[in-house]
């Protein structure tokens, strides 16, 4: 029976080629636009570390003066001073903890004809790699002792290793950064979490390539490396000795494996803030401990433009569906006589309904296929945009399936009303009118 309906539907669609083409193209445009924007949005709002994000927490305290403070409402600053970060680090209350800031690292290419260039870097503490599950290709990270002894060593990213050492094991070799020799202790495998969650408020970019070099915080500071972003909460006259300045420039992440640990750490953090208030260092006792995904939504990492584009695309899809409903309906109303004849010859309402739904589904599948082509084109267009995330825009299997789901649902919704109108046609008046 279904074969018969398919045959009928194809005949009917071929009878009005222009109209059929119009319906398919309309639906395809709507689907293409919404899948393109949805793919980008999914990419931007994804979980950068799915296997660990639930256990990673971002800690904040608030050293600002009392003025403008509304208890319970004012959020703490998004970065931390050196004193606070080190106090929390040395308390060792979490399974792992790391403080970090972003730097520019001048890489000497070691080729006589090439000029040096700046690469993105992170100055951080020993736990960084284990905390974020950063995978090593060769070697490993450094130790807490290296942190304290300000060892001039560095972990480099795979792409830097490929460029400088042709991808070979470079552990133990030296690399010249900022006109100083650093010993390579580890080479990461490809690691570029999207978004680059650990850097969202440290002054870097949120999406795109990962960092090229990672060096111990105290080593970098002893070589006068400055952080990308600094915010001061009191008058300051010396920005070189940031360790003692009333300025915030570090991000602080901790790993907490279960809800008890989270509750304990929260208590510890509150206690720390209260203790600092008692000591007179703090005026506000506000603290915050957000898990990774909450932190990203708190930071509104996903660009508003990407969200607005998605709204726009779905508004457009809605218009396309309404348009298709209208065209299918007009078509079906013109076929009242044909429906009357088929009903008189014994077709039940259900038969008619199925027939029209099959017709709508064919339009939907065709629209979906064309929509997929348009989405691939659209994503190609996104990749040629100047946005940070441009190079990441690719269709994955999931979105491939979503495309057809959206196409089918859209076309079936579009077909519902016309099919219902068709099956309630009373046969007698239609036959009499002839």
């Amino acid at each position, binding site marked *: 029976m279904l074969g018969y309906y398919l045959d009928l539907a194809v005949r009917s669609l071929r009878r009005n080629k222009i109209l059929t083409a119009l319906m398919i193209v*309309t639906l395809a445009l709507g689907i293409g636009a919404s899948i393109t924007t949805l793919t980008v949005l999914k990419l931007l709002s994804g979980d950068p570390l799915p296997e660990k994000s639930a256990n990673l927490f971002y800690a904040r305290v608030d050293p600002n003066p009392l003025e403008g403070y509304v208890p319970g409402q004012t959020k703490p600053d998004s970065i931390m001073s050196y004193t606070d970060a080190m106090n929390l680090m040395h308390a060792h209350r979490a399974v792992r903890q790391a403080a970090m800031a972003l730097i520019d690292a*001048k890489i000497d290419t070691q080729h006589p004809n090439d*000029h040096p260039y700046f690469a993105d870097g992170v100055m951080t503490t020993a736990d960084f790699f284990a905390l974020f599950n950063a995978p090593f290709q060769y070697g490993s990270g450094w130790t807490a002792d290296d942190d304290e002894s300000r060892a001039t060593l560095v972990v480099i990213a795979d792409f830097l290793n490929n460029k400088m050492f042709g991808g070979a094991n470079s552990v133990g070799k030296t690399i010249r950064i900022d006109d100083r020799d650093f010993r390579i202790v580890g080479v990461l495998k490809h690691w570029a979490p999207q978004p680059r969650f650990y850097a969202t408020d440290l002054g870097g970019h949120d999406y795109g390539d990962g960092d090229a070099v990672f060096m111990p915080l105290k080593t970098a500071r002893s070589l006068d490396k400055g952080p990308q972003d600094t915010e001061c909460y009191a008058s300051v006259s010396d920005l*070189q000795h940031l360790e003692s300045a009333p300025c915030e420039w570090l991000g602080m992440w901790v790993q907490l494996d279960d809800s008890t640990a989270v509750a304990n750490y929260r208590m510890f953090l509150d206690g720390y803030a209260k203790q600092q208030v008692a000591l007179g260092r703090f005026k506000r006792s506000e603290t915050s401990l957000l898990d990774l995904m909450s932190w990203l939504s708190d930071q509104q990492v996903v660009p508003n*433009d990407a969200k607005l584009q998605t709204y*726009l695309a779905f*508004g457009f899809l809605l218009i396309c569906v309404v348009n298709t409903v209208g065209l299918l309906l007009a078509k079906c109303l013109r076929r009242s006589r044909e429906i009357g004849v088929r009903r008189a010859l014994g077709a039940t309402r259900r038969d008619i309904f199925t027939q029209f739904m099959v017709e709508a589904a064919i339009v939907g599948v065709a629209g979906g296929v064309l929509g997929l082509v348009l989405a691939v084109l659209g994503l190609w267009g996104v990749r040629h945009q100047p946005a940070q995330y441009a190079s990441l825009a690719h269709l994955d299997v999931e979105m491939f399936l979503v495309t057809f789901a959206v196409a089918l649902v859209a076309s079936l919704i579009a077909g519902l009303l016309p099919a219902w109108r068709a099956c309630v046609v009373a046969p007698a008046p239609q036959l009499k009118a002839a």
Partner: protein
Amino acid sequence: MEIRPIVSSLKKHRIPTLLIVLQIALACAVLCNAVFMISGRVKQMRLSNAMDEQGLVSVSLQGTDPKLIGSDTQRNLAALRSIAGVQAVSVVHTLPLTNNNWGWSFGITPDSSVTDQKNTNVTLYFVGQDFQSAMGLQLREGRYFNDSEYVDNAINNAALPNTHVVIITDALSKQLWPGQSALGKTLYSKPNYYTVVGVVADVLRPRLWTSNESKSYYNAFFPVGADDVMRNYVLRSTPADRDRVLQQAVEKLQATSPQAVVKGATFQSIRDKYYADTNSMVWILVLVCAVMLAVTAFGIVGLTSFWVGQRRRQIGIRRAVGATRADILNYFRTENFLLSSAGVVLGMVMAYGVNLYLMKQYELDRMPWYYLPFGALALWLIGQVAVSGPAMRAAAVPPVVATQPT
């Protein structure tokens, strides 16, 4: 044109009527908001910048020894001056639209400290000698810095320079001392204070404030001699010489400092880069609007065509009993006008609702009322254009159709 018969005919086709109205309403709602977003972005891209941008290039020199900055800077400036066609050279720490922002907050009373809530957030521009000619600024009041004011003025890893003079923009002057001249007044941030010696026309900040246009101009210029932050060399030439000057400047600086990272850019490319995202969003919005309006128009064409086909016999009868072609044409035009009107009324309400939601969710501004009639007018016109094809075909139906069996 009598409206009653049209209305009663539409009443018989309730669902298609509702669908057309709904489609026009949705298109109107999306169009108004999209055009509003486009205009906001275009306005931002067109913010004026009182700087002669055309012949300006900038070369940044990073990664050299900070201890040698004093002698390096003099040598570099001399080398750049020797390039043929260069009219002015200076060194600054940042330029408008580079995203390299050094913000500070100042008050106008001696007890103001950086953390005061009522202070004004200002961008600090540290500038070297002759910056005004290199950047192409316009003096509104007072004077530029004397040569002696640059000497020995440095930042030396402090937050603020050790000078006591400042030049501010017009917008900042109006914000701090509305209705008064800023000359001779003082900016305070304990323990530093700076006396205003000049006011320049509004130059953009390195990073713009999207929510408040005039805040995008709050700049203060400080004279600084040699300092580690002064790493952007700016060169002015005629626009014709610009690209050659840029290339030669990069080569010269790279040759004198082989271990430095030297990057050159025309100011035009700095501007293009800053607005690249905004620009691409504008084009996406324009594209979506165009396609959406085309879809709506084709939808109207398709639906009206079927209507015309369905009513061929009625049209024939009307023609046979005396209606002219113009009458038939007008019938369909008026019908479309009524549908569009219903659609845009609903659409304007929806557009307003969408705007309210976006205002709440994304801190968008309130859409000015005139976007609504604009959207309505656009859809009226599109409806009329779209309906004219099928209406013409309807008018061409000969009266003899009335006598033929259907």
